[in-house]
């Protein structure tokens, strides 16, 4: 099968770029990690790709607010390139810090504030894909996605979450306990086109069964892999 060309966009302090690249490889893509600076110098790197990830981490050390500085690189630096990439039908996903970046760029609705408990939190969560969502990354997923969160600013805020859900833009909700105080348990949202997904949890850290904390007791299993999200994105990009 043809491997879909994908780029993982990083900034100084991005640190889950390698994990995202592994997930993309396992999902059938051919990923390369590209810094925002390189992207500004070589815009063709984006033009050649059929799928893009803004990876997690602490770009610019969260200086002045999570994601703010990298968002500037991707807007002022890159102009409309990312918007055009999405408009051309290429799926884009922002994970954790990447989600924070994409809300700051205006590509995704809402904002992410400090966790309600006031501290960074790392633990495994279960995510319910929302059946009515228009998101191409979660479409058709009917089992919960299991993967870890690792963030301090993941409390999702939006002025009208009901309207967002009615519009099919709520892609994932936390099942059971809400780990950060997000409105309406929202873990992931997409843009109006369904091409852009932003989520706080890390599906890229559950791409093989052994990574699941309950794997040794028969927990987890392939239906709950975070890899499914990447496979969806890659399949969509391949078909597009």
């Amino acid at each position, binding site marked *: 099968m043809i491997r879909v060309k994908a780029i993982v966009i990083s900034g100084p302090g991005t640190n889950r770029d*390698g994990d995202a690249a592994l997930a993309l490889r396992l999902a059938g893509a051919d990923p390369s990690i590209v810094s925002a600076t390189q992207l500004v110098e070589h815009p063709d790197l984006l033009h050649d790709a059929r799928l893009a990830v803004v990876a997690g*981490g*602490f770009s610019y050390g969260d200086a002045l607010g999570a994601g703010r500085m990298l968002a*500037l690189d991707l807007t002022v630096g890159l102009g409309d390139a990312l918007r055009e990439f999405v408009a051309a039908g290429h799926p884009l996903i922002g994970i954790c810090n990447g989600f924070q970046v994409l809300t700051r760029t205006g590509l995704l609705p809402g904002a992410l504030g400090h966790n309600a408990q006031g501290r960074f939190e790392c633990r495994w969560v279960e995510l319910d894909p929302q059946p009515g969502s228009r998101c191409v990354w979660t479409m058709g997923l009917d089992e919960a996605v299991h993967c870890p969160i690792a963030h301090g600013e993941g409390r999702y*805020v939006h002025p009208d979450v009901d309207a967002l859900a009615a519009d099919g833009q709520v892609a994932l909700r936390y099942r059971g306990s809400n780990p950060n105080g997000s409105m309406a348990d929202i873990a992931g949202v997409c843009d109006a086109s369904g091409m852009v997904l932003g989520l706080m949890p890390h599906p890229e850290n559950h791409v093989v069964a052994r990574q699941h904390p309950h794997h*040794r007791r028969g927990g987890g299993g392939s239906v709950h892999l975070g890899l499914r999200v990447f496979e969806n994105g890659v399949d969509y990009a391949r078909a597009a």
Partner: protein
Amino acid sequence: MAAGHRLTITSIDPDPRGRALVAAIAQLGLPAPDPDDVVVADLVFVDGPLSRDDLAALHDFLVDPLLQRGTWTTPEAPGVEITYLAGVTDGSAAALMHAAAQLGVPVKIAATGRRVELGRAIDPATADDIVRRVVANPIIERWAFGPIEPDLTPGGRSDGTATVVPVRELSRTELEQVGVDRALALDPDELLVVQRHFVDEGRDPTDVELETIAQTWSEHCSHKTFRATLVTDTGDERPPLLTVLRRCTDTIAAPFVRSAFVGNAGIVSYRSGTTIALKAETHNHPSAVEPFGGANTGVGGVIRDVLGAAHRPIAITDVLCFGPPDIPLADVPDGALHPLRIREGVIDGVADYGNKIGLPTVAGAVLYDPAFTTNPLVFAGCIGVADDRPAPSGPHPGDRVVVLGGRTGRDGIRGATFSSATMDATTGSVAGASVQIGDPVTEKLLIDVLVGAEDLYTAITDCGAGGLSSAVGEMADGVGADVELDLVPLKYAGLEPWEIWLSEAQERMVVAVDPSRLGELRERCRAHGVELADLGTFTGDRRLVVRSHGDVVLDLDTGFLHDGRPPRRMTAKLPAPDRTVGVGRTVDDPRSVLLALLAHRNIASKATTIHRYDHEILGATAVRPLVGVRSDAPADGVVLADPGGHDGLAIGIGVNPWYGLHDPWAMAYTVVDEAIRNIVAVGADPDRVSLLDNFSWGDPRRPSTLGDLVAAVDGCCTAAIDHGAPFVSGKDSLNNEYTGADGERHAVPPTLVITAVGHVPDADVCVTPELAAAGNLLFLLGATKPEFAGSHLDLVLGAPAKLGSVPRPDPLAPVRYRNLHRAIHAGLVRSCHDVSEGGLAVALAEMCIGGRLGADVTALPHADIATALFSESASRLVVEVAPADVDQFREVMAEPVLHLGHVTADGNLSIAGVEAIHVDELVAAFDRVGMSA
């Protein structure tokens, strides 16, 4: 800074930082404000020819309208405003300058700060106390009640010349005074050797030379005590401790050891084609005065050690020792911070660095004891991997001296000598310049530059204690170097030459580069946004020469610098521990004692801390620090395994200062045993285990303290040889003492942290402590004896007058661990847990918690119930085996194993002679302290 513009940014929703602040105030017993009255705001100061549109652009960039409100008007409500002291790195201000440039807004100067409003119910005196104790740290920050003006002038002027310090004519007393005035922390004998050297040279030293010698000869850098010839109080001469440790590793002669006790980290190879670098460090003194920065840079430093061994860091460990968090504020000695403040700062500091640099913080421990109140201990470890390749061969004459990474400022001056001295009430105020602030993003970029660039340099080391003086000085040993300080990239002007040379500014590495490869390295640095400076040449003439503004400010023979220190002879009074066997304890109510043990801070859940660390990044954490059906039970060892790989690495920790108080030799032996047991229990091969030793001790000039250290080193070595597990690296932190206002000296208890790193042949057959299924049988491996000195039973019930012995070595343990490994590898073990603090009862309780199952224990290992349940006899494990596998298990173990009972579905821990306890009650006890720990 002139009055420019200031933006005050507040949260629309209640700011979680405000609530955290109120909680911290209340915990200290200070009058806490109403959370609804508390406002926390971020401050941004900018200056420049800024138009209304410029300010609007900055506002739109900095303020998220869904989350925040921003105003350019200075608030009128009373509040305290905090900014960094001049010279402390303000990363957000640098980011703001970068952003402003991108936005086309002409900002000339930027600074950031915080504002806290405590509400009108808090009177000014209380507010001042709260700010000092909870909100701000005078070591790095300044504050004002009302609007603050940031101070952007680092101060200090220098014309770039060195000062000559006349020493040749001085009397011994005058010489010692120079040592005190310059905080050289050198012995009188050492000062005399320095004096003689310059008499021979026919000139006086410069300040740069004196400071360089002091750093190089400091306890921190040269490990004088570990290299000293020792004489016992009975007159016997003993080899230096470092020699003893090295001989131990040589004796074991493990085939997998590549490099031990050389360079920045130990290197081993468990699998062909791959090597592993291991290192653990302490950062105790800095963490005592600035907990966040101290722990933060401790983690950063140990990561650079692994990077300095040319390995890619993959995981972090931390062991933290604090005073009791509930000690009344009035009982905290002068100049010391409250343990709560230290704990909060240290854990934040570890989390901030590890989480941001993108490494999982996977293994560790948190210990509490009143002795750690004035001397908190922070141990940080790092593991790295690399493709198997020859060690770098340089530096060669002609190679360039190249520094990479962060800029140099006045941060961390004299850290090596600071950490080599004891502390007192004034330490906080004089240590300001020794405190460093970490920048994990810069270090992440350094990793990105250096991993994969191994062909571009011939030698590498990190800039740690002593800064460039130590890094370049060590690399130049036997080669010589000639460097120009004017070429060092600075954070700000005005630094004296000696300050540039000694600054411990973080996130810097020094590499030796063949001139033909410099261009390639430079391009690589440019692509990653890392600063590179070519400072000079490795010369080949064995002299270390440093220039500033055209003058030579240092010119030393590298032989004198590294080998000129007079060897120390030190006296050790060896301990005479009570090793009386059979001194038991009386426990009237084992049920409530077990619950009290589970709730004891040292045993209770550390979940709140663990969840603040990212232990998932890189996707390789196969066994996590928390395990079980609810992921809330403690693991013995953790396992790292590449998502696509077959084998893995297990990491385990052994530490027990309470045994150390009574019998340092046996303590050392048992903590080595415990670290190994922890990783064997999870699936590591006991024939492929490497060890790190980290000693945190009191002042070794006290013969009894040194004697304890000698005994502990001996205990370590005996255990290592018995288990066939070599030490590959170690570090000692001595002088962990505090002199109180009463003149009394308070030393830490003998604290030895052993880190064991072993090979897991198959990461898919790891075993964890949670009970698996009702009906399975439970076995106890190892012998149980009344060994209670230093036990947690004594911490809970109070120690009797006659203590008896601490747990003693079990000669059968090495064979037991090998047999257990075979049983695990054969799939015969359903769960397995090491028996340690709190004894068998606590181990069983933790297994029940992990599986949310019960256990019916019908046979006990000792007739005396206190011994059976609460003795901490070493080398024991509880193992769960399915009925069908029992015969084979017994056969593989090849020693008598005690059938304790079986796993039950009813959730009750039922022990013969003890009223049953339901697992929910066990969980409640285990989590009680954990909620705040």
